[in-house]
């Protein structure tokens, strides 16, 4: 099994979610993070203008079985794309074992 971690624009989340549902990836978890990267955002606060690279992003953690990896990555790559700096990253890593707590299933069965 592989873990796909995708850091995307918050505003692209709905599209990414739909894209994942379309390829039947119906399981994942997400949360909001602050991302530091190339993108800069202008802010003003009480007369101090500043631009920051700390930008709100959404972090998706999606564990899929190996055969699903490619299409899932593809789906995110396409749906999260705008073309401007700050579209985000996808990281793939290995998951050694998965359990479903409710059924105690292990492995492939557990990520379906």
């Amino acid at each position, binding site marked *: 099994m592989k873990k796909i971690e995708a850091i995307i624009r918050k505003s692209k989340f709905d599209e990414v979610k739909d894209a994942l549902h379309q390829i039947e990836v119906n399981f994942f978890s997400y949360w909001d993070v602050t991302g530091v990267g190339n993108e800069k955002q202008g802010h003003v*606060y009480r*007369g101090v203008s500043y631009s920051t690279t700390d930008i709100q992003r959404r972090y998706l953690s999606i564990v899929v079985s190996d055969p699903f990896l490619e299409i899932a990555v593809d789906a995110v790559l396409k749906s999260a794309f705008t073309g401007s700096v700050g579209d985000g990253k996808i990281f793939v890593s290995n998951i050694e074992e998965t359990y479903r707590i409710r059924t105690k299933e292990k492995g492939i069965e557990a990520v379906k």
Partner: protein
Amino acid sequence: MEANAVLDLMWIVICGILVFFMQAGFTLVETGFTRSKNAGNIIMKNIMDLCIGTIGFWAIGYTVMYGETIGSFIGSPTLFYSNSEDMHNLFFQTVFAATAATIVSGAVAGRTKFSTYIIFSFIMTVVIYPISGHWVWQGEGWLTELGFIDFAGSTVVHSVGGWAALVGAILVGPRIGKYTNGKSNAIPGHNLLIGALGVLILWLGWFGFNAGSELAISGDSANAVAGIVITTNLAAAAGAVTAMIVSWISYGKPDISMTLNGALAGLVAITAGCAAVSPVGALIIGIIGGAVVVFSIDFIDKKLNIDDPVGAVSVHGVCGALGTLLVGVFATDGGLLYGGGFAQLGVQAIGVLAIGAWAVVTAFIVLFVLKKTIGLRVSKEEEVDGLDIHEHKSNVYN
């Protein structure tokens, strides 16, 4: 008591209740415009300003301010004021005193020791504020005799608080990370919605603050009260619109925190002259206040590098002084623009300077002594982690 006297008393009590509510406004503005890790500390400071102010001002401050004058400089103090026919005035003046004290807490937020702050707040309420207040409002103070006009306290309340805040902000020093090599860094407030609610509550309370300072509503005072409500409202609106426009031009976008400050600036600026100027005059005073506050915040922050997290010095100190001076310009009776010449303006300047000097000197002495004895500032670790967890072992948000 006869109906007209009842009307006056009732009006004072109602306005006092409105001014009381300004404490909630200050609490929200100060917490909203600072970081969440210090919110609990700010709550405690504001509650204690109010509580200690209530007790201290009743116990002694009120008579220091309004007692029989000793040389036009200070009232003769008596302990635990209890004239049962004057309780409405005691109440009204108490909530004013609490306001003056509370202004300081915003400027020193996020780094000041709680125990030190409480001691300072107490001295502010029973010594610093009532003495300069005596000069203007007791009836026989030396500034009254000169003809100084500060109807509802641009100087007596707000400037005193603002200058003390300035001294506090300087002596306690900037928050860690606020300036790097003279460059100011933004430390955004954690909840501008709460800050905005605070501003609206302050605006609400200000109707009591200004219109209550008529200290009557019967007879001729009735129309005066209504006029004050209008000038107050217009100046606040003009201040907010102006600050928004200035910020729009300066930063390319209408800035939320500056717009909110602009409303407060307009309110502070009109406080001195709310009963003396026309609606048009109020509008202009509000515009001036709203513009000046933006530049003042900028200047104090970026040029002077004095860290005043909520802009208390600019809003209350600078706009308070400014508004007091502008009475000399816009007063329909005696103002420069109404053919009154420079006389009133001169007197206004004397009052602003005298009370400013008083506030700066006394606040400096008190804070300096506190600095050398129990210390003004929390440790670096406490500041970085947040005052709430160290000073109160609590988090505001769980």
